């Protein structure tokens, strides 16, 4: 794959601490921390608040480490996309080795502290999630297959599992369903985005579904993934793992998600500027995840 030179020269200046902060993708971290926290609050049993805070901190640091290593590896891609070209590495505000050292150090620290303060299982899942995101998604899949988002989505699905494991020391059916929910939520979320910034991915040579298979196939697949996602989201209620608060909320939220995904799935709009349904699905998908996990916590605390 051809790589365009990056025009911004390195200054040789030490990077600002704000650039290290930006390297952790704080906005993505918010969602990861939230799902991890919900996994922890939904788990049966009690955890000391200090240890709970430590677990969330480790999940956040692990996500930050994965993001830093992702940006270290993908700086050439980031430089080609309008959305990412102002990140510290492609903008020339940071030296590459600094990003690598920061990512490795942060990742190792988060796993070790999780293992010492909480338990080995939570630390092991955290380590797997970081390695999965960096090695399987970033290095292996992202530049090779349009299924990159599908399989890579597993990396973002781990935090709820880690939060649960931090409290209980084991894994049960409910956190596995939460894992599956985020896993199945990822394709429609990212494919909705890729439809209206397709030119960015195309320019960077990333084989996103919309670039390789075209908009029609991407729309259909986004819709098709929304169906099992909705089923998995609702499943904890009939399985007796949650009460009606979660059940009703998840059902309504999921039906609305499927409705939006159907509009995207059967739309024929080709001009990104006119893709209102795609933008709505992308924006709603973020609200959906927050609301579904929030409803789960309310339900578990209410019926505890």
């Amino acid at each position, binding site marked *: 794959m051809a*790589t365009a*030179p*990056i025009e911004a*020269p*390195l*200054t*040789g*200046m*030490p*990077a*600002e*601490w704000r650039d290290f902060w930006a390297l952790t993708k704080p906005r993505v971290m918010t969602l990861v921390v939230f799902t991890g926290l919900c996994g922890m609050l939904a788990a049966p049993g009690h955890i*000391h*608040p*200090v*240890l709970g805070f*430590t677990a969330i*901190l480790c999940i956040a640091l692990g996500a930050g480490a994965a993001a830093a290593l992702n940006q*270290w*590896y*993908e*700086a*050439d891609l980031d430089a080609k996309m309008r959305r990412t070209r102002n990140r510290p*590495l492609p903008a020339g505000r940071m030296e*590459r080795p600094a990003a690598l050292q920061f990512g490795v150090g942060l990742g190792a620290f988060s796993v070790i502290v999780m293992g*010492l*303060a909480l338990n080995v299982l939570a630390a092991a899942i955290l380590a797997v999630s970081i390695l999965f995101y960096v090695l399987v998604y970033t*290095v292996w899949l992202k530049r090779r297959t349009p299924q990159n988002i599908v399989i890579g989505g597993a990396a973002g699905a781990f935090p709820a599992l880690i939060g649960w494991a931090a409290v209980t020391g084991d894994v049960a059916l409910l956190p596995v369903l939460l894992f599956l929910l985020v896993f199945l939520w990822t394709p429609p979320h990212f494919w909705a985005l890729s439809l209206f910034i397709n030119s960015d991915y195309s320019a960077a040579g990333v084989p996103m579904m919309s670039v390789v298979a075209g908009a029609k196939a991407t729309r259909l697949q986004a819709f098709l993934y929304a169906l099992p996602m909705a089923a998995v989201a609702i499943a904890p209620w009939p399985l007796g793992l949650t009460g009606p608060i979660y059940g009703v909320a998840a059902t309504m939220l999921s039906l609305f998600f499927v409705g939006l995904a159907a509009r995207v799935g059967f739309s024929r709009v080709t001009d990104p500027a006119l893709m209102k349904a795609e933008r709505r699905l992308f924006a709603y998908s973020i609200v959906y995840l927050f609301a579904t996990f929030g409803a789960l916590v309310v339900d578990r605390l209410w019926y505890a």
Partner: protein
Amino acid sequence: MPRHDPLPGRERPDRPPFDQTEIRRRQRSRSIATALILFGLVALFYAISIAKML
């Protein structure tokens, strides 16, 4: 297998002369951030030790 280079050719750019004042400002802000983080970690490890004993 050829090794992937995320930023080909970036190790040898023509670097502008360093602005010593800016370098010192950045080093100072990074030192303050590092000190705050280390202080926070000491406090956290202390709190973890207490929590594990309870």
